[in-house]
């Protein structure tokens, strides 16, 4: 929270998704593809099958062009983007698992060198030597997955690490093995999704056999992925699983994401069975594209779900996505953030400017002003409140009541709420009343968000915090002094009038 803030209209989360989603697809293809290519070449050598060999050879070009080029750059890209949008968070993760990443780098080097040698030595070295290179690639790629899987799963389910702080407690956390099985299945799905395009270019007499061969791999991948997914879901702590499972999931959007992911997996499985295994003569580029889309959709859905249930944390129950440590909440509430951060302090004495600096430090890792997760759209507006007070349009009044009032006033009906608001005549006489009301609502929300900090602080260390009953399960708490809370409220209320402090050149804080 004491780093400079980069204003990116697109939203940090969206930018990360743009870089990370293609990377994970390619990275899993690199693993599954490597395995499948090595197995395919091994079979080709044993059976003296030229077409199988060609499938392996042509796929290896795709492997190096996609994985050693795009995969490597986008992998670095994840660090680049994370450092820009959540520097404190990625720093904490790196400080905790630097040896894990260093070990992964060793396997990565083996993987890259083996991939390049493998591709470059077709037709040039003996078959056993070439197979050795291919299988060494598989070792490097699979071990990379094992290491990264440990770090990724640690972020969602740190397990015993929360109490012990021990490296291996966090690494072999409750979701480590299920996730490894799931990602192995996904890797096979990604591999077949890519390699089907290569098989479609094979000679007509061999095409069906190759497609059927890949089809069985796809089916295996789907089954393994499904088993891994159900295992993963089963070992999640109840507090996490209840966010998206059960009759009344706390986060209905994530429940929908889960359904989407599983239906996509079903679609991929059916397409694979039908178009690759049962009737490969039906396979076309369009069906291959459909298959790839279904596989990507399952993978994307799962990743969205995994990221979603982790919110608002980067490391569950330890570190929030905006870089705030759970352990730092009391001190920051006591001293205020401007005392700790020179970048926030640059906001100066002016309330709105300080509020803007606080918004950027605490909220901008998830919210933009008008783009992705727009804060302006999320806040109550004076126009909405006026509409509710006037109640000339019943449907609009009810919509406003539901979106702006119901959460904080669960026992109050729309009519009763309207009675609590100033009348239309009163508003006409004193238009500032509605602005005061708007400001008051924002202040009340910020107070609730600050109170959430106490719930996080009071939670027993060593156990995962149950976020479901909190005021806003998705959000980190607000931290800061009373004056800072008021400054942020002033700034947020100012957004409604469209006269927020203007950024200077380059969008940087003046």
């Amino acid at each position: 929270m004491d780093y400079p803030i980069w204003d990116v209209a697109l939203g940090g989360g969206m930018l990360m998704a743009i870089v990370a989603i293609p990377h994970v697809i390619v990275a899993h293809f690199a693993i599954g593809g490597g395995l499948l290519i090595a197995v395919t070449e091994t079979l080709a050598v044993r059976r003296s099958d030229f077409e199988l060999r060609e499938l392996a050879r042509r796929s290896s070009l795709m492997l190096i062009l996609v994985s050693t080029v795009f995969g490597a750059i986008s992998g670095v890209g994840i660090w680049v983007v994370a450092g820009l949008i959540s520097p404190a968070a990625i720093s904490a993760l790196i400080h905790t698992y630097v040896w894990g990443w260093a070990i992964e780098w060793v396997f990565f080097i083996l993987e890259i060198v083996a991939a390049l040698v493998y591709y470059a030595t077709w037709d040039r070295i003996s078959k056993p030597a070439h197979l050795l290179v291919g299988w060494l690639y598989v070792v490097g790629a699979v071990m990379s997955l094992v290491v990264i899987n440990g770090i990724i799963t640690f972020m969602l389910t740190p397990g015993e690490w929360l109490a012990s702080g021990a490296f291996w407690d966090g690494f072999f956390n409750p979701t480590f093995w299920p996730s490894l099985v799931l990602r192995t299945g996904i890797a096979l799905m990604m591999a077949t999704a890519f390699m089907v395009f290569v098989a479609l270019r094979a000679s007509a007499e061999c095409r069906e056999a190759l497609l059927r061969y890949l089809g069985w791999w796809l089916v295996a991948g789907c089954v393994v992925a499904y088993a891994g997914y159900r295992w993963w879901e089963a070992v999640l702590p109840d507090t996490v699983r209840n966010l998206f499972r059960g009759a009344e999931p706390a986060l209905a959007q994530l429940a929908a994401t889960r359904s989407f992911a599983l239906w996509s997996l079903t679609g991929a499985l059916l397409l694979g069975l039908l178009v690759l295994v049962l009737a490969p003569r039906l396979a076309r580029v369009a069906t291959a594209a459909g298959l790839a889309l279904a596989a990507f959709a399952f993978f994307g859905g799962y990743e969205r779900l995994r990221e979603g249930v982790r919110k608002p944390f980067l490391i569950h129950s330890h570190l929030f996505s905006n870089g705030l440590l759970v352990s730092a909440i009391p001190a920051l509430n006591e001293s205020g953030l401007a005392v700790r951060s020179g970048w926030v302090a640059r906001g100066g004495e002016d309330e709105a400017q300080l509020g803007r600096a606080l918004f950027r430090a605490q909220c901008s890792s998830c919210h933009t002003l008008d783009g992705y997760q727009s804060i302006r759209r999320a806040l109550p507006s004076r126009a909405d409140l006026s509409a509710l007070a006037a109640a000339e349009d019943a449907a609009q009044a009810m919509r406003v009541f539901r979106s702006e009032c119901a959460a904080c006033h669960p026992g109050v009906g729309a009519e009763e709420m309207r009675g609590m608001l100033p009348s239309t005549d009163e508003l006409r006489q004193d238009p500032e009343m509605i602005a005061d009301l708007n400001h008051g609502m924002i202040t009340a929300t910020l107070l609730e968000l600050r109170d959430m900090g106490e719930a996080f602080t009071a939670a027993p260390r060593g156990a995962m915090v149950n976020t479901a009953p909190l005021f806003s399960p998705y959000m980190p708490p607000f931290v800061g002094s009373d004056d800072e809370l008021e400054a942020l409220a002033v700034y947020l209320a100012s957004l409604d009038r469209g006269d927020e402090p203007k950024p200077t050149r380059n969008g940087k804080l003046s």
Partner: protein
Amino acid sequence: MNPNLIPSLDAAGLPGPPDLFHVLLVFTFFLHLLFMNLTLGGTLLAAVAHHLGGGRGGDHRAVLAARLMAINTYGISLTISTGVAPLLFIQLLYQQYFYSATILLAWVWLSLLALLTLGYYAAYLYKFRGLPARGGGGGLWLAASALMFLLVAAIHVAVHLVSVQPERWAGLADGAWSVLADPSYLPRLLHFVLAGLGFAALVATWWAVRRAREGVEVELNTAIAAWAWRWVLWTTLLQVVDGFVLLFLLPQAVMRGLMLGGAATLVPLALAILLGLGLLMMVARTTDPVGQPALVGGTLAAMLLAIAVMSITRHQLRALYLAPFTAGAEPTVVPQWGNFLLFAVLLVAGLATVALMLRRVLASPASGAEAA
């Protein structure tokens, strides 16, 4: 209110003594530099050679361009792969300076990804479609690739300069481009570019000399060696001049720290200067590298040593730049010796596996039905 713009140290502390990570940072950065020099310098040199050779298959410069890019399409992968480790360790040791600098230059830093991707694929397009033997095309791809990598180098230099000068952050927050006005910016960028050109030219010379001595395309390889050797000479000369310019442009406090740092700073600096001058003398001694293969091999070894030594000096300069800000701010250390040991064992085993794999590959040539 806090006037200090430098973020606080990471509360998690370091999982090992700082010196261990400094050593790892310098060592892995040195590895990265070897491939980076080939990528940056090799692509620039290939672009020039291709242009001068007119893209014709028979011209020695065009053949050199094709050779350099045949290596580079693999070398670029290794540049990125070896760059991951120093990127990891710099985030560990200098996170508050490094991240702040990248955020202040956010769009520029982010554009690095696009430039790398474009440069990389442009290199492949040149390789697959533009080889002189296939009709002389591809010069545009090569020029584009060289330009992209030059821009990547320019971005790295800018981020480095911002990261070591926190006193300038407040000004940079309102206009990050002012980093280009830093008097040491261009000499520093030139230092990297010249090193890349010189190293790539020397590797090209060494290979051509080897092939010529083996009797393979003697005339062609002799011409390539002579042409590349001239590039080694001129880039080394310019590098020595630029190195002194860069030295005198250092802020007084940094220069003082360098000169008063005792053997720890003076030995690498003196060695770097001596190696630079020595390289110049070695290269100037002959215009016939094929006739003096030992001299070429010795020059290559000396240049590798110079790169290693300069990696150390560069790291020490960063520490001296940041000394006023890091004084008294020692990170907590919670060593994970078991994990370090595991990493060290795996690193040795991994590098040994790579070496054995390459040895097996070189020892298993085959063709026709026997080949994979």
